[in-house]
């Protein structure tokens, strides 16, 4: 089952005169773990903001045949686009289960909201297992650690059954082992979905990216496989630094 692709063409975002994204095009397909990298302020987060309706943009961003730009945030989500944030945000007062249940809820009919929850959705159980949060079922999300919150966010995207996952620095603050676990999780997920990751951890990128798009000052600087991009002298200059500055483990 290969679904539709996410195709972004000539995306532009301007903030009172300042061009944050100036005509960016890229695409992402189910089955790949797509990376979006680039210097600080290159416009990566802004791209995600634009695609998810948080920021007004011109150009086009399509999921299959459907144009996303100009739609309201929650409508875009209902089309199957899910995202995480650079700083994790979950519902602190609700338990992990409740967080997930709400995420799973968008496909329910609204009347059913008025009924109480009975049992746990199979999709929630699966997501819990995938993210290793099964033990935290009744823990209020507010007391989870930073990394656990990030996993919870990913789990929420899973139960949400998002076709497109836009992840803004999902492994920031995780230890090496946790990064590996997360990367493997993303690879598994990507089999049936589009996964787009923004990251500055190059080691992580090298291990898990299928294709990479490099942004610089609001434009696409380079695009291709990890090796191609790494070899690009322009990318080295503005972003990576000479050679492989940080290849530690």
């Amino acid at each position, binding site marked *: 089952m290969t679904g539709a692709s996410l195709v972004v063409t000539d995306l532009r975002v301007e903030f009172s005169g300042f061009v944050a994204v100036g005509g960016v095009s890229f695409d992402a397909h189910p089955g790949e773990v797509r990376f979006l990298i680039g210097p600080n302020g290159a416009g990566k987060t802004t791209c995600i903001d634009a695609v998810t309706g948080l920021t007004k943009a011109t150009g086009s961003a399509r999921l299959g045949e459907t144009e996303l730009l100009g739609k309201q945030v929650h409508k875009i989500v209902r089309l199957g686009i899910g995202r995480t944030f650079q700083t994790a945000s979950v519902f602190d007062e*609700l338990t992990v289960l409740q967080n997930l249940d709400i995420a799973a809820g968008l496909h329910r009919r609204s009347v059913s909201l008025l009924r109480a929850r009975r049992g746990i959705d199979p999709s929630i159980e699966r997501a819990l297992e995938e993210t290793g949060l099964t033990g935290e079922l009744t823990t209020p999300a507010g007391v989870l650690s930073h990394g656990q919150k990030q996993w919870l966010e990913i789990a929420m995207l899973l139960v949400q059954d998002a076709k497109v996952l836009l992840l803004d620095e999902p492994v920031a603050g995780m230890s090496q082992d946790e990064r590996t676990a997360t990367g493997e999780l993303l690879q598994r997920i990507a089999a049936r979905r589009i996964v787009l990751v923004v990251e500055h951890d190059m080691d992580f990128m090298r291990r898990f990216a299928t294709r990479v798009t490099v942004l610089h000052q609001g434009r696409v600087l380079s695009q291709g496989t990890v090796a191609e991009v790494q070899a690009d002298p322009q990318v080295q200059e503005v972003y990576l630094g000479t050679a492989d500055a940080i290849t530690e483990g």
Partner: protein
Amino acid sequence: MTKKPWISLGGIGVFAVLLLAVAPLVLTDHWLNNLGKYCCWAIAAVGIGLAWGRGGMLVMGQGVFFALGAYSMAMHLTLETAGDRIPGFMVLYDPLAPLPVFWEPFRSAGFTLLAIVLLPVIVAGALGYALFKRRVKGAYFAILSQALAVALAVLISSTIRETGGDTGLSDFKYFFGFVLNDPANRQMVYLIAAGLLIVCLLAVWQFYRSRFGELLIATRDAEERVRFLGYDPANVKLVAFVVSALMASIGGALFVPIVGIITPAEIGAAASILMIAGVALGGRASLFGPALGAIAVGWGQSSLGSTWPDGWTYILGLLFIVVILFLPNGLSSLPARFTGRARRTPVEQPTPAIAAAELEEVRS
């Protein structure tokens, strides 16, 4: 939220027995009537608990909806009393003018009942839609809603011929055909109010245990985040707001036959805040807290306000301070505190200040 929903249900049952069976037996007519009045406030309070406690909307202007119900009812009762004459107070200011047009439909009992239900739904619906879609929230919402209550109270005060003004509407003789002076009928009105309070509690109980209840809390805590789960938080809040408005209206409607008078003072700033006081005292997010708090504040006003009027104001003031300061979750959180069963909750948020978050608006 509640782990064992049937405990709460049992609680509602006990409450129902106390209100519907025990109270009429043990209380004098006067105190039963007063209890009826507290029930009206409690009905409004249950709604505030939903909107504020669970939904995070500090509704400081529930007087507006209380007024819609109360004045609908009062206009009907006034007309019922006046028969085919023009109500006496109108004659004073302009003897020749006819009954204002908006009074006419309230001759009909059916229309009146419909108005009590539909008016708040329409007004709260329109208002909530306008405000929530524009993402008005936090302090802005609180102040705006309070300002609306003040504006409505001043408007009623200043339209003396049309609404009875500051003096209000009073001197009702009949209640849908029943003679209001008859103690048996007054007891019947009391039972209606108490019964409706129970119904509202049941409704809110179902709300709280439903998925909607969880979604409402999620919206309260991170409205913008909810958007990214595919919900429009405006709609979630709207439902809670409309339901709370409806409850306020029902409370207001029953207030009229029970108390026998409605004036703008019952809907203005002070009255709206007093409704909040009961909710805060009892526990904004709990099921019984708002209702019990409202009844307690009403009782305090009647009894302490009698024996020690100056003192009562101090007590009320201190109540606000002490409860909010030390018991943000109201008196209903006391048992949990003592038994140490309090849920594990993050005490301090590590992430950027909430203080700013509540005031700061996100625009996209």
